[in-house]
């Protein structure tokens, strides 16, 4: 198998695992994991596309640096929200949080 398609195959598998996790798991931390998996699938994609292109282009590496930094920020804010919720409810299971309904 040529390198580009194997990288892409791994990335699609990661995307699939991420979407599977998002749809089946209800624990907030696990959902955050799944989202991070999708981010990393995209990063792998971008790096592979940028490196294996002929000639290689550096835009991809720049883009990946941005996504890594921003995904980390998003995860930090998300984790702090999860901490807030767990302090008040002692529960981070999304299906058991149901004050807002109607």
């Amino acid at each position: 198998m040529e390198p580009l398609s194997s990288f892409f195959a791994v990335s699609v598998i990661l995307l699939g695992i991420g979407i599977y996790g998002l749809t089946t798991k209800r624990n907030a931390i696990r959902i955050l994991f799944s989202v991070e998996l999708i981010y990393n699938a995209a990063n792998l994609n971008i790096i592979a596309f940028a490196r294996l292109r002929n000639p290689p282009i550096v835009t991809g590496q720049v883009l990946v640096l941005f996504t890594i930094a921003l995904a980390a920020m998003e995860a930090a804010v998300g984790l702090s929200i999860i901490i807030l919720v767990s302090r008040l409810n002692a529960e981070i299971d999304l299906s058991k949080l149901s004050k807002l309904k109607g």
Partner: protein
Amino acid sequence: MALLSLTPFLSLAVFGLLATPAGFLRFRKSKLGLAPFVCILGLAIALVSTVWLGFTSPSPVSFGGLQVDLFTLFFSGVLLIVAIFVTVASLQNMREDPNKGPFFGLLLLSTLGMIVLAASMDLILLYVAWELMSIPTYALTAFRKKDPNSNEAAMKFFVLSALSSALIVYAISLVFGITGSTGLTAIASSLSTAGPDVRPFGVLAIVLFIVGFGVKMAVVPFHMWIPDAFEGAPVTIGAFLASGAKMAAFAAAFRVFIVGIFAFNVDFYSTFAIVAVVTMSVGNVAALMQKSFTRLLAYSSIAQAGYILMALATPFTTTSVPLGLAGGLFHVLNYAILKTAAFIAAAAVATKLSVTDLDSFNGLSRRMPQTSLSIAVIFLGLAGVPPLNGFFSKVMLFTGSIYSPYSWGGYLALAALINSGFSMSYYGWVIKRMYFDEPGDESRIPEPRIYMVVLWAATILIFVIGLYPDPWIRLVQSAAAALVGSRGS
């Protein structure tokens, strides 16, 4: 001076960073502190410079991926009006809060992200702006740290919103892989010559873009976070999410699809048409069944997103005036004003009655006459009753859809028309409750003065746009032309 075109962005960035430390300073012994005034000053400078730029230098100025043209300035104006309404209304409900600095600072930085989103012509900048818009809104939704509702809303909002960002990055990675570029014009020229072997990747990228933007635009079936987030978030932040973040997501979708992806020979127009019809139908039917006022507003905002999506379902040639697109932009303006005002009216009722279920609206016109009057005007505007502003944008959207080159264009317009008529049922029902039902308690309620200032300003704006639509229609037509003009030649 080309650099002057950056004034709105720079003003928001500088004042946004100043607002947080300013929160620790006191201002003339008032309880509010300095932060809100720094915030309003920054927004006012940005709005004035946006209007000034729109009149003096309407030709596009480009700074790499950031393009300041009439489309950018139009969205900048709309989003700044929303931000000013939200900030002024927040003076009321943030009065007792000790953390005013971060609140107003985050509000400004999120607004900056929205405006940069409308200006971005490069996918890297688009993603950075997307996160600059999103991350502060998570924190703002969770701002009531001790309130379990606020936390739960923030968590539900965060999960779906983080998913949308991740999917957008994946879509960007695919587009980058196909074209080897992140600039939208370069992407368009590369996509127009793309071979059939990259077609599946392109289709996957389009689907992921629709899902990613769709979560923020709250189209069905990605709308589930909207009612929870709007109900749990601090009341004025509900308005900010409903009008600001949602309209900015539309700006990003317009840029990506109309400037970049259109060149790829895939029929995404009919996908948007189906999504639009499903979104407006589900939103309207669900709104009819709600028992709480904020949830009714949330579902009605889902339905309105369906109307705006019709703009993306209407293809056009570069030679003709894109009527559907202009109508979509006009509806963005009208929706933003109407929805912000509606949420602030809900806040006024909620702070005084501490409930927002629809039964408490019985006979409200005798208890809170100003609020009731503005709710009635806003609801008639949302339903699209002439001569209020919602009427003209809907007419433009529906007409644009009828003239679309697709044979289903007329059916789309018909579905939207039926939906629009159907929506009158729940809007009218609330008005009937306020004006014709007997209140359980006759006592007059003092109406919060700051909310009333915002509501009167919004009501006047609704009437001005509705009675003198001509200049506004010219504005949205030139904004739509600017968007089409930002396509590469």
